[in-house]
């Protein structure tokens, strides 16, 4: 997303203000460059889906909403993220309306990816286009409305990318579900959604997956041992 062409534009005030108003700009900075897998193994194997907690020698512990708020500064009160999977047609429609893609362009994105997903490469490409075009129009007079529209589109594209690489990372890690775009339709209310709840639920779900997966694999090994 950040290259030599876009970096100066993304350093400008409107970009920074627009992004911080959504309350999600922290996501750019919150991560470890190195994950201590061994440490995580030790905890994940003590995770229990029935109680959504780690069973330790002295009792149970779990990641709470308070942790989400204090560690990530994501809002934990507000509207829940609620969505169903969307059809390809809806997806093309949304991409045209909110990202400013042309029908052919959006359709290309659909056929390239499985389901209603947008490739990161595609998002990168159109973000750059929007940013450069708004810069050109900004230097002309009387184009304020167009400039604003392009800036909103650029922010929307970037937010979609940002949640795709952080909060809701897909295993293949090269595309994001377009359904999240519905939360960026109006940039003024992005902050009113409880992103912290969504992130915590996602964490629990991933832990359930890993715990469940290792259990079923283990039982296979067990039967192997008996043989």
């Amino acid at each position, binding site marked *: 997303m950040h290259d030599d062409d876009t970096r100066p534009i993304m350093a400008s005030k409107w970009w920074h203000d627009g992004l911080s108003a959504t309350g999600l700009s*922290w*996501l750019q*900075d*919150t*991560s*470890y*460059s*190195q*994950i201590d897998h*061994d*440490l*995580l*193994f*030790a*905890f*994940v*194997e003590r995770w229990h889906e029935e*109680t*959504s907690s780690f069973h330790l020698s*002295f009792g*149970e*512990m*779990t990641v*709470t*909403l*308070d*942790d989400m*708020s*204090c*560690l*990530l*500064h994501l809002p*934990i*009160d507000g509207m*829940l993220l609620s*969505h169903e*999977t969307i059809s390809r047609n809806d997806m093309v429609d949304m991409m045209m309306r909110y990202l400013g893609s042309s029908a052919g362009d959006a359709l290309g994105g659909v056929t390239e990816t499985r389901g209603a997903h947008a490739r990161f490469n595609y998002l990168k490409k159109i973000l750059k286009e929007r940013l450069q075009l708004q810069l050109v129009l900004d230097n002309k007079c009387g184009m304020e409305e167009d400039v604003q529209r392009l800036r909103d589109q650029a922010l929307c594209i970037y937010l979609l990318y940002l949640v795709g*690489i952080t*909060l809701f*990372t897909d*295993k*293949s*890690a090269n595309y994001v579900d377009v*359904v999240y775009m519905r939360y960026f339709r109006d940039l003024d209310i992005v902050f009113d959604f409880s992103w912290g*709840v*969504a*992130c*915590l*639920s*996602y*964490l*629990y*779900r*991933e*832990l359930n997956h890993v715990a469940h*997966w*290792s259990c079923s694999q*283990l039982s296979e090994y*067990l039967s192997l*041992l008996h043989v």
Partner: protein
Amino acid sequence: MLPIGPVVSCQNTCLCCMYKLTIMFVFSSVSFDCSYIYMWLSLLQAWIYQHFRGIGSNNVWGGYRDDMHARVMFFAPRIGLFTPDSYRGHVDVLDLSGVVMAPHEEHHEACPFKRVSLYSRWLRYGNHMVRYLPERVLRQFGYVQTVLRHSCESAPPQ
């Protein structure tokens, strides 16, 4: 006749190894790439550093009080203090003295405590549901832990 003891312990060791391999595989199947951030892994690691003494760096508290910055970014990437086996051993023998139950208490000035954290039941995200039962971990909020209800009673199956 074979002595039973050694056979059992041998089986246990095998099982242990296989179990570890399995979990390693699960993690490695999440393909790691520097350009993508697996937030849930980072988050879990940050949570462990916050709540358990002796794991993670000592200066995790630094820099937060004067600043509203998210804390995760302050943690320097580090290499584990223990080898995998002793991580497990360490977690096995943890007692309450090694645990910081409510690490955010002093930071609630900067980031106020919200009562919604105490909500206990189901959480929904998209079309998925997970149990969220902080009533089982009230100590983490600085409250007294009571006798726990059955999880089905706390969050009745839908």
